[in-house]
């Protein structure tokens, strides 16, 4: 951290806030201490300073005082700079504290802390904000390294490329995406948008992105089509199909608790050895239901349908292979 730079930037903000006319770069150099004499050096430093202020969200305006002026000048309009009047009641501040803590250990923790600092500066009492009833504590994590760049890409409407390892594929593939939104569903992050290579709408899971996410176009170059509901896209992509196929299982008495939860009927099996129940249930997909049935080991036997029965036998043989 450079104290001189902080002082210079602060001087620049105060200087531009206190003027209603646009100030030329030269007038700024006269007014704000800390800029070098040499023109080239000054130019470079001033450019960087302007960029830093814009990154902070300072609304730096460029314009001409007179149509015949040669060079543009700069100013910060007080009204554009200031946070509007914001009075928070104690209960509102409490909820705000809760909301800021949601990101505690995640990508947006810094942004949430920055917002709190400004709201405290506007008069919010920090004691109110920490007083939230501790009865509920939600947290969002962003362990996926792709979250940061994709959030920026969606915010700034920029296309990105990344390599993606689709489920069950061994080799990652290069994708080029116009991202429309980032969604968290069931604790996992997804990005949805137009896949340029496939010219179609696609949803990607951030945890399956391998390596860096790179921008491949300027800000503002992505248009989100009207009526797109990113949340719906992800829900459709992720949702479980309906359970429509019937299955009959033998389940050892006192076991298969999770399985019995969804049973259509359960009755004691009086045909074979005692200690077993006949459970009729419904399932959506042979593969995933076979996984589930196999996980109960010797406590569950599939009687019907035959393809489900074969699939379970294959899993179990796979264990011994």
């Amino acid at each position: 951290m450079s104290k001189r730079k902080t002082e210079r930037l602060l001087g620049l903000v105060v200087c531009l806030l206190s003027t209603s006319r646009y100030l030329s770069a030269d007038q700024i150099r006269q007014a704000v201490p800390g800029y070098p004499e040499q023109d080239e050096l000054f130019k470079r430093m001033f450019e960087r300073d302007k960029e830093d202020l814009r990154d902070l969200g300072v609304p730096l305006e460029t314009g001409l005082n007179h149509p015949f002026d040669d060079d543009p000048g700069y100013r910060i309009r007080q009204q554009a700079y200031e946070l509007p009047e914001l009075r928070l009641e104690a209960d509102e501040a409490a909820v705000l504290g809760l909301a800021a803590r949601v990101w505690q250990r995640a990508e947006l923790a810094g942004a949430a802390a920055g917002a709190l600092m400004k709201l405290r500066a506007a008069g919010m009492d920090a004691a109110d904000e920490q007083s939230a009833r501790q009865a509920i504590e939600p947290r969002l994590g962003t362990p996926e390294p792709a979250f940061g760049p994709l959030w920026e890409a969606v915010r700034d409407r920029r296309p990105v490329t990344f390599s993606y390892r689709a489920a069950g594929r061994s080799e990652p593939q290069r994708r080029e995406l116009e991202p429309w939104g980032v969604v968290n569903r069931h604790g996992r992050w997804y990005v949805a948008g137009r896949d340029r290579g496939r010219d179609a709408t696609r949803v990607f899971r951030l945890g399956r992105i391998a390596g860096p996410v790179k921008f491949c176009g300027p800000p503002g170059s992505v248009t989100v089509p009207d009526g797109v509901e990113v949340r719906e896209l992800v829900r459709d992509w992720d949702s479980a199909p309906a359970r429509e196929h019937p299955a009959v299982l033998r389940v050892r008495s006192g076991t298969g608790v999770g399985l019995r939860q969804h049973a259509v009927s359960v009755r004691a099996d009086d045909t074979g050895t005692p200690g077993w129940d006949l459970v009729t249930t419904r399932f959506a997909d042979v593969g995933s239901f076979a996984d589930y049935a196999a996980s109960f080991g010797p406590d569950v036997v599939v009687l019907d349908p035959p393809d489900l029965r074969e699939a379970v036998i294959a899993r179990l043989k796979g264990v011994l292979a």
Partner: protein
Amino acid sequence: MSAVTSTERLQRLLALVPYVVSRKVVGLAETAADFGVSERELVDDLNLLWCVELRAPDPYCPIDLSYEGGEIMVSQAESMGRPLRLAVDEASALLVALRMLAELPGLEDRSAMSRLIAKLEAAAGEAASASAQVAVQVDLQGDGTDGLAAQIGAAIAAGRRVHLRYYVPGRDEATERDVDPMRLLVVEGRPYLEGWCLRAEGMRLFRLDRVLALTVLDQASAPPPEATPVDVDQGLFRPSPDDVHVELELSATGRWVAEYYPCESVSELPDGRLRIVLRTPDTGWVRRLALRLGEDGRVIAPPDLVAEVRDAATAALANYVV
């Protein structure tokens, strides 16, 4: 001094002046605590603000302040009397979290929530509209857990004990227990009840999607003094020295396992295969996982778990020999 950048410090300085102005007079210690800095750092900040000088057209110092006797006062703030408006990321972080909170069942104060969202949207202006376009949204897991969460919220508010019928998948077992509920946690999109379990005589977390039944009892909730909530920011599940290290080898089809369960280590093998190490206090669920994976996942260690999985598979196959 901590490693803050020049722009981070500038943000703090820009907030400091309106912070004092809105309070008229405020103590050094309280201010330092609110900004998360030491009093020494705060005094450095105040000196820096006081020294700001503009040289043209006429030299003057725009900010005048004092901090005598440990009390800060700003007598002249020029145009810096109000904080900078919220940046897009700042407005988004709060609004996204608030919209998620608004959807949570079990949250009592909905009126404060909607008033706050409206005020923030108004104050953030354009930055807020960008956050709506950003469309970061959160869906919570667990159909049918809404009613449960509301019941738990009410039990906590009323200070009542609850009775749970709770499913433990690792042992494929439904357990009955009385719990003094303390908090509702939502971590990684999954709701949990945190409370003092009278059966285990310890703090326990219960996933709401595994609660088979819940009754609010007439007894008052009375967690003992040693019942302290977990620090959610340190992670819900902490490794214990008694944990078993389980090593698994996954095929390309079985890679999802590494996404689902927190792994101690993950290493790539040829053909998209993975070798992972998990730590767990209870290997029951790993045995069930291995049976489900079939040839897509193989337990490599520890040896007794390898044998257990093979025995279970052999016994299960015997059921199919008619």
